[in-house]
């Protein structure tokens, strides 16, 4: 009962915050709404007994990514003008609708299997075993880190001003 109430509060806050991110004209307030959305996601993880994941969610998304987004907003020129409309409105709408359609189709058509076991407590030990034991997931995790590094380098190359 308590868990269900918590879930619904989190879910409503999350959806409202996500809508606010899209519709607010003030970029800084939109970034703050994004922070609220991330915190609500962490709350949902807590209700699902994934405490480690919730803490990492706050640490990475609120503590690092949101802070960098806000820094980006502060560095933006003429940010007072808000979020100006450009010519890419129609293509963006088409891509977004397609993506939404695909996501809804995948979520509704996947047969989700729900485990009948009780959630593991404490969660840290099984996570460590999954990660570091033989046949663990350490190699995929490392590959993911290398991929992110490559993405950062790509972003730097794209945004770098040409030295003429």
């Amino acid at each position, binding site marked *: 009962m308590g868990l269900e109430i918590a879930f619904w509060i989190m879910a409503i806050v999350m959806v409202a915050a996500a809508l606010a991110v899209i519709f607010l004209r003030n970029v800084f307030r939109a970034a703050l709404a994004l922070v609220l959305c991330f915190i609500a996601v962490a709350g949902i993880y807590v209700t699902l007994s994934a405490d480690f994941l919730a803490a990492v969610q*706050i640490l990475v998304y*609120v503590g690092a990514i949101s*802070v960098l987004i806000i820094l980006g907003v*502060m560095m933006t020129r003429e940010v007072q003008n808000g979020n100006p409309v450009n010519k890419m409105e129609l293509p963006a709408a088409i891509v977004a609708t397609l993506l939404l359609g695909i996501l809804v189709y995948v979520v509704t058509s996947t047969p989700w299997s729900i485990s009948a076991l009780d959630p593991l407590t404490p969660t*840290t030990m099984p996570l460590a075993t999954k990660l570091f034991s033989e046949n663990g997931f350490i190699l995929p995790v490392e590959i993911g880190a290398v991929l992110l590094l490559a993405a950062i380098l790509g972003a730097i190359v794209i945004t770098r001003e040409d030295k003429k």
Partner: protein
Amino acid sequence: MATTELLNITPLPMQVTPADWPGGYWWHWVFFTIVIIAFVLIMVMGAIYIERRGMARMQSRLGPNRTGPFGLLQPVADAVKVLLKENIVPATADKIVHWLAPIVAFAPVLMIFTVIPFQNGALLADLNIGILYIVAISSVATVGTFMAGWGSGNKYSLLGAMRNIAAVVSYEIPMVLAIVGVVMVSGSLSMNQIVAGQDIPYILMQPLGFLIFFIAACAEINRSPFDLMEADSELTAGFHTEYSGMKFAMFYLVEYAEAIAMSAIITTLFLSGWRGPLLPPWLWFIIKTFIVFFVMVWTRTTLPRVRIDQLMGLAWKFLFPLALINLFVTAIQVVVWPDISQWIFVIVNIAIAGALILLWSKFFKLGQGRIEV
């Protein structure tokens, strides 16, 4: 595995408080919430008194000594004065953000105390992920600082907030690496278990980790010599320039509550928390917290403020490599020699810490003209 053996913590002679003391889930919650709020407020008053009087003593002046015996009531008088001030909001401010900022900054600091044990088992929630929770929650406080800096619509506030991000993002890394060293030795993330496993205080086992954590903690909470974001001579008062009255009081409270929180975390991680002979455990905890806070005041009065390039250089060129080496050395010790006496590691680690600091101070020069960043 080596780490599982370390998890078998030897039983302590002290009485363990039952998990839901003082009985029932909601009673426990109400009791400890009140305890935490009272603890933070009273400790902040004590901290302000220690800082003002201690700093005055170190600077050969008297400090506030008129209100009450020995000036003990000065923090109360200050609080009453600041609460009666007019609340001024600048015309160009983003009103909602300006209003929310002190709350967003204050809530995480209180939440840190959720997992700090005042006595064996006497804490609001003995989270299994304790120290990770603290690292995560304390990173939220930065958002409050940003909201203050941006919402004020003042360039000095914004500059203060920008400097804050630079400091927090850089110093988070050596700080977390220092924590990982402690976690590897203790084999647990739970704050209560970390204290219970500390037969030798980890300040001896992890001297380098302690120094790195202390420096990084001072930089995270913007205490001198790292108080660039509110450097009075450059930025008037940094991110809270445009705040007055109750909202300024909140930021003032956050500043000292963060200092107390960091002192409490250092006490728990490195100074064996509530453990100690003769005196009751909670008293030991408070004494140790105040000692750590006193050292913070001491460094504040001793060292001049660093420049922004020195701040970045110290984090990335000095603390970060040392934290990595410390982590590596600790990992080898925990994995290869899990069974030999920990006193050997105490001697070895102190020697390693001394050698590394000497070596790096040769590489790394500050205060002799410009350094390349």
